[in-house]
């Protein structure tokens, strides 16, 4: 017995190359612990295992100022396929990984990082399955959390101000609510346009992980790049932060407010559009967007609010995204009144 233990320790000491457990990812019952999948080479969820690729988006969802680390794992030999619209076509077995983390001080964003949760979207045969794993306080293990939980978070923001908030880990239904298009769960971020930073997609194609990549690619603006046109930045921000629900196939389809960056109809973009079921969320304003008048626009009001029943998005944040609001207000202010 003792010898066995020693042998086991020796094996561990030899540190076999970590590998992703594809069978475990596709099993009907999700693993209780994140580490069971072998997606990370370290115990802290910071070092991806071989084959788990880090990626970035041009414009990403605001989540209470959390830093996000995104990875994708493709089953060996099975590339994703390019599509011009919507998310790339990922093969069965694909696992998209997103960790939400806070540095102790955003002025030193690479030091003292606390990971709160790691969310997975696993492409099973029957479709995408959302899972959320919440890390323990020591940051040594993350366990499956299906019913949601609130966790206190403290950090110092980029201005040097101490902040504390009541971070909400979503429950499974909330995952499905944002990720559902026509009631089918789908990733939101990894579209060709949002992945197109000029090199990322080309790198994937060169590595054989992406097929059918054309020479000319769509591109979603970076919301925080002041060099890009204001409308493109604001509409990219609205698409990513609101468009998963506010689409014809999304949870807010009944609102008639569709916030895709390429939505052609002004009324559906919110311009001079009256509210339908906003209730007191309208804040006494008569239109989603009044060109030239951010103060009169419901859109800005609901982005600024942190009150449930008024705030938008309805969940996924508990504080106002000051910079996002400033961008959308500037966009509304610059819209010509004749629209």
């Amino acid at each position, binding site marked *: 017995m003792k010898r066995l233990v020693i042998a086991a320790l020796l094996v561990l000491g030899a540190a076999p190359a970590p590998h992703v457990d594809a069978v475990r990812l596709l099993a009907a019952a999700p693993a209780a612990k994140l580490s069971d999948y072998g997606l990370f080479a370290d115990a802290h969820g910071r070092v991806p295992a071989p084959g788990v690729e880090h990626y970035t988006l041009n414009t990403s969802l605001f989540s209470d100022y959390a830093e996000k680390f995104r990875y994708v794992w493709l089953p060996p030999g099975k590339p994703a396929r390019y599509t011009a619209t919507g998310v790339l076509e990922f093969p069965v077995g694909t696992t998209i990984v997103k960790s939400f983390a806070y540095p102790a001080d955003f002025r030193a964003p690479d030091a003292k990082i606390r990971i709160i949760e790691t969310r997975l979207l696993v492409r099973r045969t029957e479709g995408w399955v959302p899972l959320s794993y919440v890390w323990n306080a020591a940051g040594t293990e993350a366990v499956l959390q*299906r*019913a*949601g*939980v*609130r966790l206190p978070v403290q950090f110092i923001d980029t201005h040097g101000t101490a902040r504390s908030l*009541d971070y*909400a880990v979503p*429950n*499974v*239904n*909330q995952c*499905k*609510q944002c990720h*559902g298009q026509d*009631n089918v769960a789908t990733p939101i971020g990894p579209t060709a346009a949002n992945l197109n930073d000029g090199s990322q997609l080309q790198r994937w194609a060169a590595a054989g992980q992406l097929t059918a990549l054309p020479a000319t690619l769509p591109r979603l603006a970076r919301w925080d790049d002041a060099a890009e046109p204001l409308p493109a930045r604001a509409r990219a921000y609205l698409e990513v932060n609101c468009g998963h629900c506010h689409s*014809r196939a999304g*949870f807010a*389809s*009944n609102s*008639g407010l569709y916030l895709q960056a390429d939505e052609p109809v*002004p*009324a*559906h973009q919110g311009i*001079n*559009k*009256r*509210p*339908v*079921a*906003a*209730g*007191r*969320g*309208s*804040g*006494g*304003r*008569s*239109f989603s967007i009044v060109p030239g008048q951010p103060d009169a626009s*419901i859109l800005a009001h609901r982005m600024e609010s942190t*009150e*449930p*029943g*008024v705030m938008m998005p*309805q*969940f996924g944040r*508990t504080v106002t995204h000051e910079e996002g609001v400033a961008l959308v207000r500037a966009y509304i202010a610059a819209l010509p009144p004749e629209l």
Partner: protein
Amino acid sequence: MKISALLLIATCLAAPAAARTIMVAPGGDAQVALQTALIDAAPGDTVRLAAGRYVLADGLSLDVAGVTVRGAGPGRTILDFTGQKGEGEGLLITSGNVVIRDLAVENAKGNGIKSKGSDGISFVNLRVEWTGGPKASNGAYGLYPVSSKHVLIDNVFVRGASDAGIYVGQSQQIIVRNSRAEGNVAGIEIENSYDADVHHNVATGNAGGLLVFDLPDLPQQGGHTIRLFKNRIIANNHPNFAAPGNIVASVPSGTGVMIMANRDIHVFDNDISDNAGNAVMIVSYQSKFTDRNYNPLARAISVHGNRYAGNGTRPGFPGGAEIAAAMGGALPPVMWDGVIGYASPSGGERAADGGVMIGDGPAFTLNLGMQGVPTSAARPAPLVLATPLLPMPPRIVLPAAQEARAAR
């Protein structure tokens, strides 16, 4: 005894998918316990909530088809959202063939109970209430099925909603019955919906009692085939406390029944009394619109065989008092705006494809003529009572299995 125990086990083994009852009790971490039960439930299961007060900090949601959520009664099982920190609803249902029954939802920050995209959704013996009474800071809708099909609302009490107590939006095949809406801005509102029977309800103390609306720029519009009958629509004279900008904020306090746009609407055999404004108001959508597929006219409307008393004494809409004075001191029970045409956003003028048939008198028209003409241009005149009336649509029949589950 042993044999029956064995039998029980055998039954369980033979039918692993047999319906289960998942019990939940208040206290402890009710939020996690309840939400976990709603996630774990399988089709056919019942989530049973014991009596007591469940103190909840976040909205709850159900996304499993065929589940019944059952409390111990609307006075005994209370989902208390007074301390709600997140989510737009108290309880959200996104699956079909669901029954929510025998419980109460109190003080939700947004809407009380919402269903989105459900085919087969029954709300039975519920109370949805903002316990501080009518306030602008209350949530918008009490019961809010939207984009749903086969909707049953039976024996529900809603009070205090800052928009509509019972709001059915963009849905089809709807029954709202035996319910009471009190102290909301709108009592019961059917909007952008097809095929609804609204009957044996009481709407009282709201700003407006029963509303049938159709709005532009929405995935489902062209509301039609709705019957309002055997309802009691009494003293809906509460000040309108909706947030300006919302369509119900335009409903004058004192309105009994209001029909805006829509076609094939039948209002009959109701008791409509003591509403200070219009007992029945039939109007077009009055704002500008750019939606080429939208028809702003109220047409093919039938109002007959209702009983009226004590309405129209203090009309709240602009010019109402003058019209009442000219009509002998009180508004006649039925008012139509007399809009029979509109300028289409795609060019040209369109005429109403169906008349407004009023069998109840006296009735009058504002003779506005074209959509968008302000009421200040009204030329009030008596309406000639109509015979014959519109053909009556068939009654709404929900699937027998849905009615059977609601009856249990």
